[in-house]
């Protein structure tokens, strides 16, 4: 066999000649560190950066396909203005210059700001620069700002932040290095992508046990030791039954609950009392922190006396009923929890969830016994907030992770509360092997930031009072006017969804179109595909976007879209701003936003351009800085009105949250010489220092600050000293939520201050239950389930990010269209065979799609991959691209609003507490498509033409070789 020449053939490339630049990936929101290998300035290869704490050198399918994003024919390259007179959605545009675009925006926005700033709304999709966009909105003075959170997973964020002061994903996660049992609930396959995969694999290799609770078994669940199929929307029932059984068997961590939660604090249970359900307060003693008062009571079981909470030497009763000196009946919060969950037996939950009762019992026992009998002791001494010194850190090694399977239901907030309480009962909060916070979490419950409190906070030519997004602590924090009407266009922080801490992006277009609560003028959408996959009710939303009133004016007068690609949304814009890609811009994963922190300390990161922007593309960050300057928004100009920042990198270095605060977008290498961390004066060399350090900054906390941070004196004092926190108060777990009770009392007319409109009293009273409870998701309650018996859900595939990867030549080969996965028994009952064309229908709409049998789905559920289907011509795909012919979008079956209630009131199809979109509540039925029907998905939308500036040449084939235009003859 010939052996000689081949070697030279395979090793012909001089790899040593490659240049390597590091930056941060943004093929998804995970933000791994990457190395971009360049040959003659062209990208040759992208791999994971082994030095990076998040991904430790690994990469995912999307990240490794970044090159194809640069090659995409769907890239926008020039600012575009809709041709006057043309309809939106028709894609008739003319190229304009950036100067034209800027002056157009400047004139329009300056006018709005001088009259009524709330008529400008800025909503952003799955982006990661809320620190900047939020700042811009606040400076502009509009309350109408939010990012994707409201339709993404705000239930998960709010449910846990209002309970334990932190949450999953960017806020915290499961410590799988130490855990012995891992229970993953409602998480698909790419949530917290690489870090979670790294962790799961290590965990499994350690022989520990992994249970997945999900209607579907794919992705992460595939490698679980046990799969527990569950009916969608019923996890609340399961979790409450688990809590019940854990209490019943005494499997809770009593010591942990007593000291670190409000379980032992006494709650007023005096019938008829205006303070019913509030914590009993000691008027004599010092509240210490008026916003988060400390002066509550325990009933000390040792002395059998009422004592101030956390009295040294005391131990609270967790059960029982007591009386205060004035005779007021009080109960420990834990007793109220027991009273609540008594009804929720495993047998009861079994009926609802479809999980056998024995399995529920076993799960509860497994969790409880593992937490109690497999304790971890780390030899780390620390001091708690009450001054008690501990010689070790204890871990109860049961870890949970949950995501949108819980969050994306309208009962998700209470379900997530139940989960957080279960985790707390097991004693797993910020302890080894359990849940761990990531800086800047934990935050106070609720966090300090507050939304504007009424119309008075929105004034012409003024900065907004409060933050566009915040965390209401009681009804007076709501953004409503004197009649209880919403201040915001999405009705966030109104009585309809009081704790909508991430806004309700899914209702913006509908509300603006209807003029309810008011009309707006300019809607700026950044990085969200609202004409497709991020709207519920996509078909109708597309009509609204192009709808005009009698006078011929658009109902939403001016629509600006900033995107990097020709998405479905760009077709509807009046003005399109072409953004750069992640390889072409400076970017910051800021500590003021959702940084990429690790369990052991804060981490933030940057992107530094590795290639030049394509065409006329400009980073949106630069657009914001430019507009901030032109509009003379205070943070962006000197007192004399002159522009303060040259560009975005300059802004990042020099901006401080307040003059001299020492807090800026980046936490690393602050101080004149870069020797300070987290807090310090601006450092002109900050970018260079990040560049030298693989584009991230990692501050590792001393071991004694790494655990029990809610109540860790050392950690709290440190975070106060670097201004990560305002105070060093302990953050007790809210087993019982007094915050919720305040809203309930208002609804009952028992509290002074803001009152809900009468038609909302019942809704508030029901859903603001201070203890978790189970109810069927709202849409299910309103649906005829005999007609529409099935649940339809989506999952994200690992190799696609939402809608934006269909223009990626490699990734679209993996998912070029989608099927509806149906349990064979269910399909066959309808005469549907594997591969058949079929209809899936809800009350709201119907979609024709192809069936794929699957034994890995619970029979009451059908599912598909999210956002694979595309509108014809979008993303500059050919008219016969599979995405638009065979691929389908499940969103056509959804509605952003619920059917009117008895009073004729229409509410968002969302969680009544948080406004989280109820994506996975829809009820459907399926049937076979007729033989005469076209073998093509339905609905279809008229073909959109490629936008000016995109590559029009549709190549029959392409081959990518870095640095060479034509494929080489010799390899």
């Amino acid at each position, binding site marked *: 066999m010939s*052996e000689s*020449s*081949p070697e030279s*053939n*395979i*090793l012909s490339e001089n*790899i*040593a000649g490659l240049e390597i630049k590091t930056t941060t990936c943004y093929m998804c929101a995970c933000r791994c560190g990457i190395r971009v290998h360049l040959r003659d300035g062209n990208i*040759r290869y992208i*791999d*994971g950066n082994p030095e990076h704490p998040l991904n430790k050198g*690994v*990469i*995912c*399918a999307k990240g490794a*396909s970044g090159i194809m994003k640069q090659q995409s*024919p769907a890239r926008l390259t020039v600012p575009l203005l809709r041709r006057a007179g043309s309809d939106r959605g028709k894609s008739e545009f003319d190229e304009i210059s950036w100067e034209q675009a800027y002056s157009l925006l400047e004139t329009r926005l300056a006018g709005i700001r001088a009259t009524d700033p709330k008529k400008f709304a800025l909503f952003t999709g799955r982006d990661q620069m809320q620190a900047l966009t939020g700042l811009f909105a606040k400076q502009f003075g509009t309350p109408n700002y939010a990012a994707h959170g409201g339709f993404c997973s705000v239930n998960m964020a709010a449910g846990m932040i209002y309970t334990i002061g932190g949450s999953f994903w960017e806020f915290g996660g499961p410590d799988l290095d130490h855990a012995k049992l891992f229970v993953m609930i409602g998480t698909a*396959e790419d949530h917290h992508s690489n870090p979670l*995969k790294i962790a799961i*694999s290590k965990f499994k290799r350690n022989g520990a*046990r992994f249970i997945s609770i999900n209607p579907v078994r*794919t*992705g992460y*669940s*595939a490698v679980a030791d*046990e*799969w527990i*199929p569950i009916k969608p929307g019923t996890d609340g029932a399961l979790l409450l039954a688990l809590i019940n059984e854990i209490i019943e*068997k*005494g499997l809770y961590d*009593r010591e942990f609950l007593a000291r670190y939660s409000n379980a032992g604090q006494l709650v007023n249970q005096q019938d008829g009392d205006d303070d019913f359900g509030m914590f009993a307060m000691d008027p004599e003693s010092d509240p210490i922190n008026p916003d988060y008062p400390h002066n509550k009571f325990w009933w000390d079981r040792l002395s*059998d006396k009422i004592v101030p909470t956390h009295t040294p030497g005391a131990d609270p009763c967790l*059960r*029982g*009923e*007591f*009386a205060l000196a004035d*005779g007021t009946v009080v109960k420990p919060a834990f007793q109220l929890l027991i009273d609540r969950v008594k009804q929720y037996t495993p047998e009861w939950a079994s009926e609802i969830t479809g999980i056998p009762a024995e399995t529920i019992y*076993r799960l509860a026992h*497994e969790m409880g016994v593992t937490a109690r009998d497999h304790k971890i002791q780390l030899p780390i001494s620390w001091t708690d907030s009450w001054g008690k010194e501990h010689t070790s850190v204890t871990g109860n090694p049961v870890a949970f992770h949950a995501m949108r399977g819980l969050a994306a239901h309208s009962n998700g907030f209470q379900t997530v509360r139940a989960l957080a309480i279960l985790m707390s009962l097991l004693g797993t909060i910020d302890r080894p092997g359990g849940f761990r916070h990531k800086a800047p979490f934990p935050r106070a419950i609720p966090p300090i930031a507050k939304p504007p409190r009424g119309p008075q906070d929105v004034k012409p030519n003024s900065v907004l009072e409060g933050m566009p997004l915040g965390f209401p602590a009681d009804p007076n924090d709501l953004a409503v006017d004197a009649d209880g009407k919403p201040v915001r266009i999405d009705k966030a922080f109104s009585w309809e969804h009081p704790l909508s801490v991430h806004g309700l992006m899914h209702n913006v277009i509908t509300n603006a179109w209807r003029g309810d609560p008011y009309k707006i003028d300019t809607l700026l959408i950044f990085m969200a595909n609202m004409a497709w996959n991020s709207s519920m009710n996509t078909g109708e939303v597309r009509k609204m976007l192009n709808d005009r009133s009698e006078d011929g004016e658009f109902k939403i007068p001016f629509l600006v879209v900033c995107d990097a690609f020709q998405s479905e949304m760009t077709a509807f814009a009046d003005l399109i701003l072409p953004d750069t890609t992640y390889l072409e811009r400076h970017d910051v994963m800021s500590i003021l936003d959702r940084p990429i922190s690790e369990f052991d300390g804060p981490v933030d990161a940057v992107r530094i351009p590795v290639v030049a922007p394509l065409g006329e593309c400009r980073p949106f960050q630069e657009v914001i800085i430019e507009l901030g300057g032109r509009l003379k928004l205070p943070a962006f100009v000197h007192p004399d009105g002159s522009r303060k920042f040259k560009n975005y990198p300059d802004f990042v270095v020099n901006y401080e949250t307040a003059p001299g605060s020492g807090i800026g977008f980046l936490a690393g290498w602050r101080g004149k010489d870069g020797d300070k961390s987290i807090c310090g004066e601006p450092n002109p060399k900050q970018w260079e220092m990040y560049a030298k350090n693989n584009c991230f900054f990692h501050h590792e906390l001393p071991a004694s600050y790494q655990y029990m941070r809610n109540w860790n004196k050392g950690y709290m004092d440190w975070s106060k000293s670097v201004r990560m926190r305002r105070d060093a108060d302990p953050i007790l777990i809210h087993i019982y939520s007094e915050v919720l009770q305040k809203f309930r009392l208002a609804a009952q007319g028992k509290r002074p201050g803001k009152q809900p409109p009468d038609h909302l009293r019942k809704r508030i009273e029901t859903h603001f239950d201070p203890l978790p409870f189970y109810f069927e998701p709202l849409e299910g309650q309103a649906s005829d389930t005999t007609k529409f018996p099935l649940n339809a859900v989506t999952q994200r595939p690992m*190799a696609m990010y939402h809608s934006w990867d269909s*223009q990626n*030549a*490699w990734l*679209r*080969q993996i998912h070029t269209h989608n099927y509806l996965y149906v*349990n064979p028994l269910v399909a066959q009952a309808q005469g549907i065979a594997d591969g058949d064309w079929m209809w899936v229908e809800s009350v709201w709409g119907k979609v024709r799609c192809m069936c794929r049998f699957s034994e890995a789905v619970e029979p009451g559920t059908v599912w598909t991959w999210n956002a694979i289907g595309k509108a014809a011509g979008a993303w500059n*795909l*050919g008219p*016969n*691209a599979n995405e638009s*012919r065979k691929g389908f979008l499940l969103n056509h079956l959804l509605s952003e609003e619920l059917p009117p209630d008895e009073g004729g009131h229409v509410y968002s199809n969302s969680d009544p507490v948080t406004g989280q979109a109820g994506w996975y509540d829809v009820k459907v039925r399926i049937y076979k498509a007729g033989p005469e029907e076209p073998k093509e998905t339905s609905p279809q939308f008229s073909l959109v033409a490629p936008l000016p500036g995109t590559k029009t040449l*549709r190549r*029959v*084939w*392409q*081959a990518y070789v870095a640095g060479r235009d034509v*494929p*080489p003859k010799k*390899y």
Partner: protein
Amino acid sequence: MTQLALVIDLNVCVGCQACVTSCKSWNTSGSAGYLADERPYDENPTGTFFNRVQTFEVGEFPTTETIHFPKSCLHCEEPPCVPVCPTGASYKRKSDGIVLVDYDKCIGCGYCAWACPYGVRELDEKRQEMTKCTLCADRIDNPALPIADRQPACVMACPTSARLFGDIHDPDSTVSVAIRERGGYALMPEWGTKPSNHYLPRRRTEPNLREDQIMRVDNPIRIDERLPKSSIPSPSLDDTVSW
């Protein structure tokens, strides 16, 4: 003698496809030559990949297992694809057992692909040359790369480290140990091709719970159920009855 190979751990592979696109990305710009994509933005896009990840369902609801199954050339020890090649373009490298194609010699007859039972060779439609996994021959002993990077692209990419790489003839290598200790097996052993790549099976950790573990002496119920003496100050028998 050295026989390099991949060992793929089905116990942790989540089917993320990172190995698929990393492989494409590394190789299309490298010495393996470009890997063409046809109809990249149109109907039925298709292209050359050295590595594919497939999905299978095993069993019936509710005891279904979902298996993600990555597959690339297995670098057989007795590769049937090599002797059939008329030009000698397909060969097995003596030094390390990697099965390679010398593109300059390949006439694109496709015969070697027929002779591979595993369906891992792909004739590039544009180059009209046979391509396949090179085991990243241009990385693993390339002195121009830092030592840590002298591994296949897919191995470095894999987030679950489901892909192990090493010499299966060295009994002490990680791959040999894994094969030995974790039941590593070869695909289609019936053909005697002796694939070098191996697969590690799923393993299941079962619940380990005894009835007597549930209630323990130090059960907190014993504390919490002992209600304090004075609960609600309501009259007791002592207050109302005299004997």
